[in-house]
């Protein structure tokens, strides 16, 4: 269960975006004036294939409440199958964060084409809502137990 006092209404979210697709879509969203949640911090990578498991874990260690990994659609990866590898690593990282006590829903892989500005904005907003929901659920659960749980 998260440290209740550290949860904010605007959750800390990191989005690892590949340069060729997702980052371009994010850029496009901005150009199109498609509003998306301001709490999302984008980290641009050449490819989601650059994301390794510990990069995701470090994000959570450093305080991220949600991590998005956004890459090209399957079959369109500039580096052929970087996004396929990323999918597997995200799936594995979900089990690792769950083992450590975090809800695996706090991590997700998305596929967004370069032209899909509106999709990026929508995805970012939906993910933010998801994290807010998880935070609220955990806060309520902590309250009802009266204290922060220890193992």
């Amino acid at each position, binding site marked *: 269960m998260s*440290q209740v006092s550290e949860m904010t209404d605007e959750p800390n979210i990191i989005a690892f975006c590949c340069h060729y697709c997702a980052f371009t879509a994010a850029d496009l969203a901005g150009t199109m004036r498609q509003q998306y949640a301001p709490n999302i911090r984008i980290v641009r990578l050449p490819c989601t294939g650059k994301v390794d498991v510990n990069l995701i874990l470090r994000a959570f260690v450093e305080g991220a409440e949600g991590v998005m990994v956004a890459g090209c659609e399957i079959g369109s990866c500039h580096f052929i199958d970087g996004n396929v590898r990323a999918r597997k690593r995200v799936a594995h990282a979900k089990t690792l964060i769950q083992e450590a006590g975090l809800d695996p829903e706090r991590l997700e892989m998305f596929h967004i084409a370069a032209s899909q500005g509106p999709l990026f904005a929508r995805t970012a907003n939906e993910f933010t809502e998801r994290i807010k929901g998880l935070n609220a659920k955990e806060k309520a659960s902590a309250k009802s137990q009266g204290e922060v749980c220890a193992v």
Partner: protein
Amino acid sequence: MIVAERKPLEELYAHAKKHKKVLFLGCGTCVTVCMAGGEKEVGILASQMEIAARERGDDIAVTEHTITRQCDSEFFDEATARKVEEADAIISLGCGVGVQFCAERFPDKPVYPGLNTKFYGATLEQGVWAERCAGCGECVLDKFGGVCPVARCSKSLLNGPCGGSSEGRCEVDPDNVECAWQLIHDRMEKLGRLDELEENQPMKDWSTSRDGGPRKVTREDVRL
């Protein structure tokens, strides 16, 4: 190489919780190849520990260090000794040999195993490692076309196959295990040596394997 798998986090957390500062010590040889206890895996485990400790409100400081091999004392150098000194306990991500060597080297520190050591095996493909050798102490691979019946036959038959060999799979675990004797048969057939399998292999002398007691190899000619 020696193939191992990382222990579940719960088990390791229970050990770490008993101490204030824990050093996660990785090994750069076998367990790096099988992606269980190398520098990368140490990093992942350390991150998981930090997250878990934060979630549970526990106070555990985590440090990381990886050496070339934990089965040779020369790699437990000054830098390693200092890191060990600073920690209250070590979780060694070496194989069972490494964990013990580490404990022998630092007898005053609690040393816990981070891995479950499994077998001597080979990389079939990235992410898949399979058992090949049982360390029986008397290699008979020449008789079986290079396929070991001791390690790869579920019943270690020297005069196999048993009645449970079906479509080249072992009845004990058909999804994962090939029938070693089917492999031996096919290999010997290819080598034109099938007639050799008609010979009845006598009982194995197991005294050279672990059955005979813990083993040691000494080379007087190279001792200093």
